[in-house]
């Protein structure tokens, strides 16, 4: 008991107590003025007349376990004393809030169920301070959040910052590419075409990443093109239809921030893009296809990396202009389709990769 309580226990003074029962069944009595600091308890006492004896103990909400109740009562015990200065209250709060994150969350929940708004504010502020400025991985670790979003979903909202986003982006794309390569080798498709396809697609990746208006769009279109290409290979279908579909996808990809991976896979004409306007943001959470490859980031070939760097810088410079003209070009190129892959080069012209000698 606090000093206040000790001082008050005199035979002539009958202190009134309120009986509280937590969800686990245990019952305790608490000084009235302390307990009444909680609006929910106050309500129960005044409106329903509960809490006056052990049999009529107020049942506290489930979110309030005995440990949390004890903390909350400490808080109430301090703050219900009217004479304290703001400074005292603030420094008490600062010390009070120092606890591990788990308890902080539990406390927030418990305080909320007791409608103790000042404590909810205090704990919310503390939680906000924990979250602020941290990377998503750090936050997930602190709060044990499952990392259960697909990469496209991660892309869906706004851009988020990472370090060296372009490098990570490229790393992931290359990792993906490598994986695909392995799979294809297993499938034992036509080797020559495959190789050609693979080379080209690697280049395509580069240009799509850096061409047009954005990294993500580049990814999308390149992804869709990749998928298209694969299907084409498998079907050995080089009809104009397929090409047109690719073309459409490109267009749509260029217009949207992100597409879901399904687009690429199913070669749909319409892109299931989920959001907004053009974005040229450099900081972006990379999207992956259904392939998860988070751990291949470091395996990128340094020479390749350097080349990519250079290209990235180069294309980034060109990014900021010629958007309408490029659109025109894409649209106009739709007519002269051949079963080769082309991509939008950063310099505004469409470049066709017909053989593997290019790069």
């Amino acid at each position, binding site marked *: 008991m606090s000093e206040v309580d000790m001082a008050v226990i005199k035979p002539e003074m009958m202190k009134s107590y309120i009986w509280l029962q937590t969800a686990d069944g245990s019952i305790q009595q608490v000084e009235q003025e302390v307990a009444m600091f909680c609006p929910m308890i106050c309500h129960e006492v005044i409106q329903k007349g509960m809490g006056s004896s052990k049999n009529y103990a107020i049942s506290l909400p489930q979110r309030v376990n005995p440990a949390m109740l004890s903390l909350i009562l400490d808080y109430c015990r301090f703050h219900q004393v009217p004479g304290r200065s703001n400074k005292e209250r603030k420094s008490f709060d600062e010390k009070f809030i120092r606890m591990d994150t788990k308890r902080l969350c539990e406390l*927030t929940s418990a305080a909320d169920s007791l409608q103790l708004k000042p404590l909810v504010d205090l704990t919310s*502020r503390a939680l*906000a301070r924990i979250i602020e400025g941290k990377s998503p991985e750090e936050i997930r670790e602190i709060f044990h*959040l*499952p990392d259960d979003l697909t990469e496209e979903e991660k892309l869906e*909202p706004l851009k988020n910052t990472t370090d060296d986003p372009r490098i990570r982006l490229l790393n992931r794309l290359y990792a993906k590419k490598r994986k695909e390569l392995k799979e294809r080798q297993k499938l034992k498709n036509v080797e020559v075409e495959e190789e050609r396809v693979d080379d080209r697609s690697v280049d395509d990746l580069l240009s799509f990443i850096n061409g047009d208006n954005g990294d993500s769009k580049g990814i999308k279109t390149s992804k869709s093109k990749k998928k298209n290409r694969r299907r084409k290979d498998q079907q050995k279908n080089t009809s104009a239809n397929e090409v047109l579909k690719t073309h459409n996808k490109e267009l749509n990809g260029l217009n949207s921030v992100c597409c879901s991976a399904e687009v690429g896979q199913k070669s749909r004409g319409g892109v299931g893009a989920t959001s907004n306007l053009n974005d*040229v943001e450099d900081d972006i959470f990379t999207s992956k296809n259904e392939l998860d490859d988070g751990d291949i980031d470091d395996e990128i070939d340094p020479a390749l990396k350097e080349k990519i760097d250079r290209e990235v810088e180069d294309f980034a410079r060109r990014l900021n202009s010629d958007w309408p003209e490029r659109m025109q070009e894409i649209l106009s190129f739709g007519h002269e389709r051949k079963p080769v892959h082309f991509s939008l080069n950063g310099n505004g012209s469409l470049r066709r990769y017909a053989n593997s000698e290019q790069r």
Partner: protein
Amino acid sequence: MDDVLAPDLISDLPQSIIETILTRLPIRDAVRTSILSSKWRYKWATLTQLVFDEKCVISSNDRCKVEDSLVKFITRTLFLHQGPIHKFQLTTTHLQCCPDIDQWLLFLSRNDIKELVLELGEGEWFRVPSCLFNCKKLTRLDLFRCEFDPPPSFKGFLCLKSLNLHQVLVSPEAIESLISSCPLLESLALSYFDSLALTIRAPNLKYLCLEGEFKDICLENTPLLVAMSVAMYMTDDIAEHFEQSSGCNFNRFLGSVPRLERLIGHIYFTKYLSIGDDLGRLPVTYVHLKVVELNQVSFEDMKEILVVLRLITNSPNLRELQISGSSNTLAAIDAPDLDFWDDQCPSDCTFKQLKLVKMTDMSGVPHEMEFIKFLLANSPALETMSISPCVYVMDGRLNMLIELLRFRRASAQAEILFIQD
């Protein structure tokens, strides 16, 4: 501890708490929570308060890039947002006149916006689009560096409680009619207007803050005004205008504010009040006036001294008085009318509640000293009188002290603090 098995600590808290937490984060961090986990994907999207500034985007030396990023960020946030938006604040030096802002305002006007703060950069001022005037639920409007032109059919913001126009280009009639057509207006701040002549009719107005070049202010209908802070700048044509004016500024300004509790005047405020014919006894007693702060009072101008006296002698419950002097020492040394203090000064007034007096920038000129003497002699409850000499006065300090020592004090517990810097 195996993280996979550990329970999620936070995602199951009630949405109201999550929103409280997210509201306390900078908007960028709040939006980033959308990639934490599937449960968190849209937790941020229902935030009702969106506060944007340059910290939302990566800073760089390329101004265009920052502008671009900021525009994109805001547009995308608004686009992904769900539900009503009650507060939208944008503070930036980078954006000025930008068509996206029009679109955002249109979007906000459709989403029950209540508080709108637009602080834009220098340069070409943003012209507020007409959709702003359709925001029926607006309770707070802060505009910095904008052009504001209400359409003729505009009937006012019926819910507006707080209006702050800072460097806003708007015609005086428009401001007047805006103020009078917002019946719930409680707080009004107008700053940096050029030569504004304004009549304020705001039956619910409690807080008034004016700063700038005001030619003429008349508080015609502000019975509930509780606190005001006025800083008036002077230009040549305003001074000229003053010379020709005949109405009593004091009455026009302070004539109908019976509930005033705090009055703060800066720069030329006292001078402004001193202009015009003195109509004798003030019709109103400032029963609630507790704190008066008047800066840059020129003690060589008898009229300004009279303004101060008039104010404090009509405030029986005055608790705190702060006066800073701005005396032209050469002119003030002559001190004509020094006998005013003995002859005409009301000697029967007692400042029964005056506890604290602070006189700053004192030059020690005769009228200043007489004023201090007057206060000391008539303040039986005085606890502290602090006097800070003006930095330019080095030699006269000793004399000031000698004089101060002689003054009679009505209050036995008054402490006189002479504050050297």
